[in-house]
């Protein structure tokens, strides 16, 4: 009887385990089935590098280059802002901060991670957007830069907590060795700890960027949503994610537009997948 119970439980857990893989495969297949259909009407190169996204004009122009560039611009901007601040913050928490400040900072960062993206977007809309407009004297504050700043806040918790882990797991003997050679605390961190933790920090950065590139709500609210090729970070852009979210509701099921949005989904999937795999490679290199 006991053996039978064990058997049942074992199989149940197995099924639960398989289910998650099964669902991922189903989602992926569905995405492929719906998305690949668009390539009956446009070829792949035209789709990826076409400069015009007019999905409901006649005939439809389905070039997603402006969307890819929009996503890239916002993501790179967010990385430029969040990586230095995030890594510096991790160094402070892991190596410098007294224990009480450390606790407060860690709690603060967890709190930052808990803010729903729509709330961040909404706060950005009423505070950041007018500020960008006034400071840079641009016609609208709904720009890629506003999106980058907001997304930097969303990437920060991931970057800080994983980098901090990486720094924390550097053997203490490295730091002792550096200090015993007469290095200052900063020199020990910069020349020894940071290189030793570099693969973990790179993974942190990749995962942070992964989060940014998949983010939808906040960017949709504050980047202006104009699907044209941006020439500077102070122009409105539209990202891949925002495009799907904004247009899926009005696309006719089975239309070219509908399939194109799924294809945009595939592009996003491929990008996030590549980023996650890279991050994973760095994390495993560490071990």
């Amino acid at each position, binding site marked *: 009887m006991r053996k039978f119970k064990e058997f049942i439980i074992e199989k149940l857990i197995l099924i639960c385990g398989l289910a998650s893989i099964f669902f991922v495969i189903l989602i992926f297949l569905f995405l492929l089935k719906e998305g690949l259909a668009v390539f009956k009407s446009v070829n792949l190169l035209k789709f990826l590098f076409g400069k015009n996204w007019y999905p409901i004009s006649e005939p439809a122009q389905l070039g997603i280059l402006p969307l890819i560039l929009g996503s890239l611009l916002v993501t790179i901007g967010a990385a430029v802002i969040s990586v230095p601040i995030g890594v510096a913050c991790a160094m402070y928490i892991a190596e410098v901060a007294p224990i009480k400040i450390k606790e407060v900072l860690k709690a603060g960062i967890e709190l930052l991670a808990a803010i729903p993206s729509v709330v961040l977007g909404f706060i950005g809309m009423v505070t950041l957007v007018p500020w960008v407009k006034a400071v840079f004297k641009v016609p609208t504050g709904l720009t890629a830069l506003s999106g980058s700043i907001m997304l930097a806040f969303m990437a920060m918790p991931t970057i800080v907590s994983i980098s901090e882990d990486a720094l924390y797991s550097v053997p203490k003997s490295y730091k002792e*060795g550096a200090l015993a*050679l007469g290095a200052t605390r900063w020199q020990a961190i910069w020349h020894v700890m940071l290189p030793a933790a570099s693969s973990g920090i790179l993974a942190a950065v990749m995962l942070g960027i992964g989060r940014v590139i998949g983010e939808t709500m906040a960017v949709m609210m504050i980047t202006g949503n104009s699907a044209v090729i941006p020439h500077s970070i102070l122009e409105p852009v539209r990202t891949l994610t925002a495009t799907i979210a904004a247009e899926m509701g009005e696309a006719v099921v089975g239309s070219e537009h509908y399939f194109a949005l799924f294809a945009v989904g595939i592009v996003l999937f491929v990008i996030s997948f590549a980023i996650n795999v890279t991050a994973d490679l760095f994390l495993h290199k560490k071990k």
Partner: protein
Amino acid sequence: MVITTKNLNLWYGAFHALKNINSGIEANRITAIIGPSGCGKSTLLRVFNRMNDLIEGVRIDGEVLINDINILDSRTDLVGLRKKVGMVFQRPNPFPLSVYENIVFGPKVHNLANKYELDEIVEHGLRSVLLWDELKDKLKKPALGLSLEQKQRLCIARLIAVKSDILLMDEPCSTLDPQATQRIEELMRELKNNYTIIIVTHNMQQAARVSDEAGFMLLGELIEFGQTQQIFTTPKDKRTEDYITGRYG
């Protein structure tokens, strides 16, 4: 005397780890500190380069004079002190950088040399620890790929590169096999012409083989300090004799 301690006491929180240590360590000798685990010998060693400062709740009083300057003074320049008083750790701890970068780390942080001199420093450092012939073609290779013995030698070369005068060695051979241990001991004998070496070890044979003077510690006290030969053949204190003859430890 290069190092003199006067009424040195140290507490970890409430634990009295070093009790009234008075000793004098002479230049260009190898001084061994022996004693059972937990007797405070590593703690004493770490007083000399103020590495105990890294531990929270440490309190020290008394005097430690290195070249007639009290290093326990709060105004002590720790960077300068640790440059002069280098430390070799129990587990070899080369940085996860290349062999070359490991040796030039010290000179770089102390601004000791320009780019061209660095190459010389690396060669001199590696020659001094008899690694040059083995590693001269592997300078760009990661130091973590070396053997344990090579790593420990590299750690000694790092100290030579910053021109330390005093080498503190905290059980430098405890992770090495007997052959490697023997070779490190030979190296120590060679280095003592130019350096003052203090070695902590709980390997009594090693202390007997390599040191000129020895101190025996027990429960935070320095029980006996003198010529190694005298300590090992005619100890004055009963407790030293018991330890030497293997009655505890």
